[in-house]
């Protein structure tokens, strides 16, 4: 039988295998095959000693031995994968929100009951989850949770279920796959006791959140007699507050031996810290651009910015269930974090980048228009890239020892090393107590030597400076590759006391070295003492990029996927200038780029520094426009001034200036823009929803009618094929932020 669909599938068989296994999968296999210091986690030992109940749901050994970054990585990927699975549940926004909120609470507890759904073999009206419950007297109760469900509900979704019961095993300590058909069943019921919370004595307690789930918490009594309570979250402990000032008791019924059959839980607030940083102003203040009247100022000039650090930094806050500090939100970096569907110019094109524009109704203000300008840099195949001379300047001070700093840095650098060619050179300089060269310039095909040097790196000592940066520049200059990519890559968590203590002097040095052709990029790691604004400034002065690395995916994105973009410059000092026509545009506002604004006269001044465009990189800028209403060609500006308008259909002229990587004289591109109604592109939907996201997080005075609902809607429509999952992740962040914002409002 002729069947075109299956012929099509057969012919495209190879293309179907488009999923990439996680980078961490091999590590899991390797650690199974070649275990290192196998240990029995305390919890396992205690369970066994109590002779009590089995942990049914997990191979505890594996779980405990997972490194923290692997855990967060798994969560990360799982988040990306959530989308298709959601189809089986009702799609309404409210249900989706409820589901996600539940997941965020589950994440606090570490055990995702809902991840282990499976259908019930004997009782089809139930779905089941697996979990571990803390019993009284430190006994762990492994259980299968059964829940009678209505349509669209799943385990973990408490609302609407008619009843819960836990099916447990009393024995079988070593059996992971327990046949539960003969297990005793106990009914769970939550009752509020009359025990006032304040009478509770310090110690370790079970903590419940919204009466649902449990984990270990700690109660301490402060010196002044008050009670503090802590709950864990992803390896950290957070001080939190008690809700309702009372404890809950869960009765386990008679079917199980749990020392009295009941245990006490303290109800805590899962979102107490949502606003901790929200109004914290330790980031460089961003004063948002205002609307400018075209008649007053018809020119608008700025430098491009290819950084995406603000986006990954903000992602870290949101994944920790906290709203980011408003000034950590740089909208142009949100927008430029993403790849857009743009065509790169040919090899022999006149200019090294393509450009285009779109004008549509502004999503958050229907009476305004939104102008999107896009640029796309020439793509250079990896093999044709000029040789690289990379000097890594690594902070190995004691504060870098956290799992999300030096270990993550090493992982990312190993990924990069795999990409290097024989003509590339890498050297490594470290600074901490003292600065030193740990890897002399080494050719990119001697990967083992580079990796061994990386493996030897250890953190320790204070950041007492030393000759770090001078040493790095010395190496870079000694092995300078003409026409190549000569760059110092500084990796730090903020203590970049690299030998020159005076900030201005440091910037002067970086600017000076930039002229010799050695550029400087910065990668930020970790949280806490990250000095975001200063780091960004240093990277800007060094003709470099600033990236914030919060997980392995981001390390891969920056070090591998963007190796061409972040590392190899195809045009430098790229400036934009827009000249608006007051007859068409009454006023305008540049969204973001606040610290990239240039004076109008600096546009044509080639001594003024501006941003670099890397190979394959895309740049997007947005202007919110207020269309002109006037029909007359003459506008009275003041008592003594009358402005005669030129008869033109043009809304504006867009001008670009750039230099070739080695050039000193800039080239000018200039083109006029008229308005025509066109359909929305996915690029526009994406950039405008990112801007809307930023306006909401900043609580901007220009946010108009911006809403998470509209941003989510647009982001969904912008999703496209999204092979790397960044857009799905963005939707996820929008959805989480909406919940966080609501929780924040409730607690204000």
């Amino acid at each position, binding site marked *: 039988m*002729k*069947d*075109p*669909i*299956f*012929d*099509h*599938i*057969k012919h*495209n*068989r190879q*293309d*179907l*295998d*488009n*999923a*990439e*296994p*996680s980078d961490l*999968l*091999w590590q*899991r*296999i*390797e650690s*199974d*095959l*070649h275990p290192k210091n196998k240990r029995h986690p305390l919890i396992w030992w205690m369970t066994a000693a109590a002779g009590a109940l089995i942990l049914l749901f997990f191979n505890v050994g594996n779980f405990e031995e997972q490194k923290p970054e692997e855990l967060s990585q*798994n969560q990360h*990927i*799982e988040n990306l*994968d959530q989308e*298709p*699975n959601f*189809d089986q549940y009702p799609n309404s926004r409210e249900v989706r929100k409820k589901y996600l909120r539940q997941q965020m609470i589950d994440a606090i507890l570490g055990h995702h009951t809902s*991840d282990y759904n*499976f*259908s*019930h*073999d004997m009782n089809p009206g139930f779905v089941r989850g697996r979990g571990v419950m803390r019993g009284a007297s430190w006994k762990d109760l492994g259980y299968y949770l059964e829940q009678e469900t209505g349509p669209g509900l799943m385990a973990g979704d408490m609302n609407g279920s008619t009843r819960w019961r836990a099916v447990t095993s009393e024995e079988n300590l070593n059996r992971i*796959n327990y046949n539960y058909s003969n297990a005793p069943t106990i009914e769970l019921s939550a009752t509020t006791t009359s025990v006032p919370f304040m009478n509770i004595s310090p110690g370790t307690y079970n903590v419940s959140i919204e009466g649902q789930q449990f984990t270990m918490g700690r109660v301490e009594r402060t010196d002044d007699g008050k009670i503090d309570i802590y709950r864990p979250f992803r390896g950290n402990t957070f001080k939190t507050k008690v809700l309702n000032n009372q404890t809950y008791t869960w009765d386990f019924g008679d079917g199980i031996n749990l020392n009295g059959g009941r245990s006490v839980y303290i109800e805590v607030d899962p979102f107490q810290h949502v606003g901790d940083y929200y109004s914290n102003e330790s980031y460089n203040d961003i004063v948002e651009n205002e609307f400018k009247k075209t008649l007053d100022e018809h020119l608008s000039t700025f430098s491009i910015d290819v950084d995406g650090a603000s986006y990954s930094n903000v992602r870290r806050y949101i994944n920790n269930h906290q709203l980011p500090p408003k000034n950590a939100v740089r909208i142009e970096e949100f927008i430029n974090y993403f790849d857009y569907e743009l065509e790169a110019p040919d090899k022999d094109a006149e200019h090294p980048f393509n450009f285009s524009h779109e004008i549509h109704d502004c999503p958050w203000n229907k009476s305004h228009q939104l102008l999107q300008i896009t640029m796309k840099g020439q793509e250079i195949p990896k093999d044709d890239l000029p040789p690289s001379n990379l000097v890594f300047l690594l902070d190995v001070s004691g504060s870098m020892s956290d799992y999300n700093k030096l270990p993550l840095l090493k992982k990312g650098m190993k990924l990069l090393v795999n990409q290097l060619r024989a003509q590339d050179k890498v050297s490594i300089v470290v600074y901490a107590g003292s600065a030193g060269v740990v890897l002399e310039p080494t050719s990119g095909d001697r990967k083992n030597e580079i990796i061994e040097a990386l493996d030897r790196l250890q953190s320790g000592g204070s950041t007492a400076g030393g000759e770090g940066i001078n040493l790095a520049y010395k190496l870079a200059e000694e092995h300078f590759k003409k026409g190549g990519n000569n760059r110092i890559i500084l990796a730090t968590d903020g203590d970049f006391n690299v030998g020159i203590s005076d900030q201005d002097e440091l910037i002067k040095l970086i600017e000076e070295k930039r002229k010799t052709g050695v550029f400087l990029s910065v990668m930020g790691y970790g949280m806490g003492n990250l000095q975001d604004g200063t780091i960004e400034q240093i990277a800007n002065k060094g003709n470099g990029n600033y990236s914030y690395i919060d997980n392995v995916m981001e390390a891969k994105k920056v070090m591998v996927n963007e190796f061409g973009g972040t590392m190899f410059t195809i045009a430098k000092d790229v400036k934009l200038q827009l000249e608006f026509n007051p007859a068409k545009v009454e006023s305008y506002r540049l969204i973001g780029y606040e610290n990239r604004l240039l004076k109008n006269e600096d546009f044509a001044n080639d001594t003024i520094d501006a941003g670099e465009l890397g190979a394959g990189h895309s740049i997007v800028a947005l202007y919110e426009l207020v269309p002109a209403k006037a029909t007359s060609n003459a506008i009275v500006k003041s008592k003594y001034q009358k402005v005669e308008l030129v008869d033109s259909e043009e809304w504006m002229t867009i001008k670009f200036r750039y230099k070739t990587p080695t050039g000193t004289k800039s080239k000018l591109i200039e083109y006029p823009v008229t308005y025509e109604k066109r359909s929305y592109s996915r690029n526009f939907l994406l950039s405008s929803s990112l801007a809307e996201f930023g306006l909401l997080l900043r609580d901007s005075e220009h946010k108009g009618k911006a809403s998470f609902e509209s941003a989510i809607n647009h982001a969904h429509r912008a999703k496209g*094929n999204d092979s790397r999952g960044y857009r799905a992740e963005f939707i996820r962040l929008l959805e989480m932020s909406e919940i966080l914002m609501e929780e924040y409002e409730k607690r204000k």
Partner: protein
Amino acid sequence: MESHVTDLHKDLIDRCKHNDVSAQKAIYQLYAKAMYNLCLRMMGNQMDAEDCMQEAFVRAFRQINTFKAQSTFGAWLKRIIVNQCINQLKQNKRLNWHDLPAEPGSTDSMEEEDTSGISSDTINLAIQKLPPGSRAVFTLKMLEGYDHLEIAQILNISVSTSKSQFSRAKDLLRAALTKPVQS
């Protein structure tokens, strides 16, 4: 051709027999992507697929001495992966040979079908939405080249069940993939 491929990796396989971690990693990297996609299709979600990959590769490396080059290494490894997936599905009670949606949807006018616009992602998503049983049969038959007799043995079902599951899967897929694209 296939045996030639085996020879190419013979050295690696021999080193694996001595528990050489770098050879194990090299073998893993050679096969990881194809096997992962197979797992993903069989299991329907990433987490279970990764678990199966882990279990199966660990098992394969531990039992690599039993590989006697009667088949290609890839076929041997694939069989371990498939068995692991099937066991996992059975354990999770997700294999059900009766519970199929009753209405497979319209199947006429497919000769006119323009298939060129169907992307891999769309096809994968449609496969993912099949019930686990027919998804397993479809994957093994259409995409991995097993025949119904082998599938019946692997899944411990009858040949006719395998055939009927396969045609159910095709009906469901056809219905899913000929739906007008929503704009």
